[in-house]
């Protein structure tokens, strides 16, 4: 049986960012799912065996940290990477308390994201 590709969920309401990150990650060999808001993200997490999630802190419905909290219940081994355009200290701290793997400040370097995802992949394989 072939090994499942590393699955990532990208959650951001900014369509250019969301769809371009999806394309780049796909080209890098990741299995990619996308969502534009918190509720859709949780739906994806219910149905897909996700390894990681890239979550924007500010979403149209519920904030990214809350999404992480709810997805964690469904997928306890999922690693979250939080994205933020303007640092809201309390939310970022809360994300790390919940076990977020990393925080990326927008506009971020895609190489940094790839480095983080590969780190998560390595950790999972150990």
């Amino acid at each position, binding site marked *: 049986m072939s090994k499942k590709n590393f699955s990532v969920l990208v959650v951001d309401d900014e369509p250019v960012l969301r769809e371009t990150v999806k394309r780049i990650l796909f080209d890098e060999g990741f299995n990619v799912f996308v969502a534009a808001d918190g509720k859709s993200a949780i739906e994806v997490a219910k149905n897909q065996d996700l390894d990681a999630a890239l979550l924007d802190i500010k979403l149209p419905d519920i904030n990214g940290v809350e999404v992480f909290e709810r997805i964690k219940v469904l997928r306890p081994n999922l690693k979250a990477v939080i994205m933020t355009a*303007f640092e809201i200290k309390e939310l970022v701290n809360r994300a790390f308390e919940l076990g977020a793997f990393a925080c990326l400040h927008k506009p971020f370097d895609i190489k940094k994201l790839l480095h983080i995802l590969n780190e998560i992949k390595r950790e999972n394989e150990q």
Partner: protein
Amino acid sequence: MAEYKKLLKIIQQAEDKDTFIKQLVEAVDIEDQQQQQEIIRQLDLKLSELKQNQPEQNESTLRQMHSARLSAMGQMAAAISHELRNPLSGIKVAAEYLMRKLKNHPDAVDIIINIQNEVIFANNIITNILEHARIGKPDPERVNIKRIIEEAIITIAQQGSFNNIEIKKNISSSLPDLDLDILQIKQVFMNVFINAAEAMVGGGLLTINVLTQGSMVIVEISDTGLGIEKNNLDKLFEPFFTTKVKGVGLGLAICKEIIENHCGKIDLESKPGKGTKFTISLPIVQDCLQKN
């Protein structure tokens, strides 16, 4: 029309309150002397009452208004920064995607590099505006300024800005502690160090003197860089003034505001070709922090 012109003249030529009220009442057709006097008396009382009810624009009120404006600005800056950083992220990632697809096309690569640099520049503008809007009251701790200077040097060195630059420190061993907002003061030093480093492109010497002079702690930061033209010197601390090609011009304005909020002063001397010296003076007893 005649009545209108008469009244207008009285109002425009009024020099003191009593004469003004008397002339105004005389201009109105009240024949009864007693009634005239009563109107004059009532007007006088009413004008005094209205003046009392108006809040005086004293220093404390002005400070409160400034503080409220800063707070509203801070919120606006936060909202703007978020709104702008999102599309900027999209542009940055899209440029990266194009770079991957067009890496064998040198003309396209050049343009994509320009796009990426413009994103960095735009992001720096946002950061500067945020910093400027966020400067509020200092949140001071009792600390030795030497510690903050050392931290700032380490941070700038880690960014690689001090490559080829020799740093000479002459720090007095008997410096008194001061009440300083560590983050804000560190920001000042980092700003000045970055300016010095940028002025010494091929390398140079950065000298940091810290001493006590009477009731002041003085920090002198000198570089052996390009120096600044005389006619730019007095504009350097103004918001949005910059001599840099890609500068935003808020760095020194922010520094000035931070130092003044700490009851201090920041000055500079410079000669083209000779270098620049910043002098930051902070009083040992920072009275203004109590008032703030």
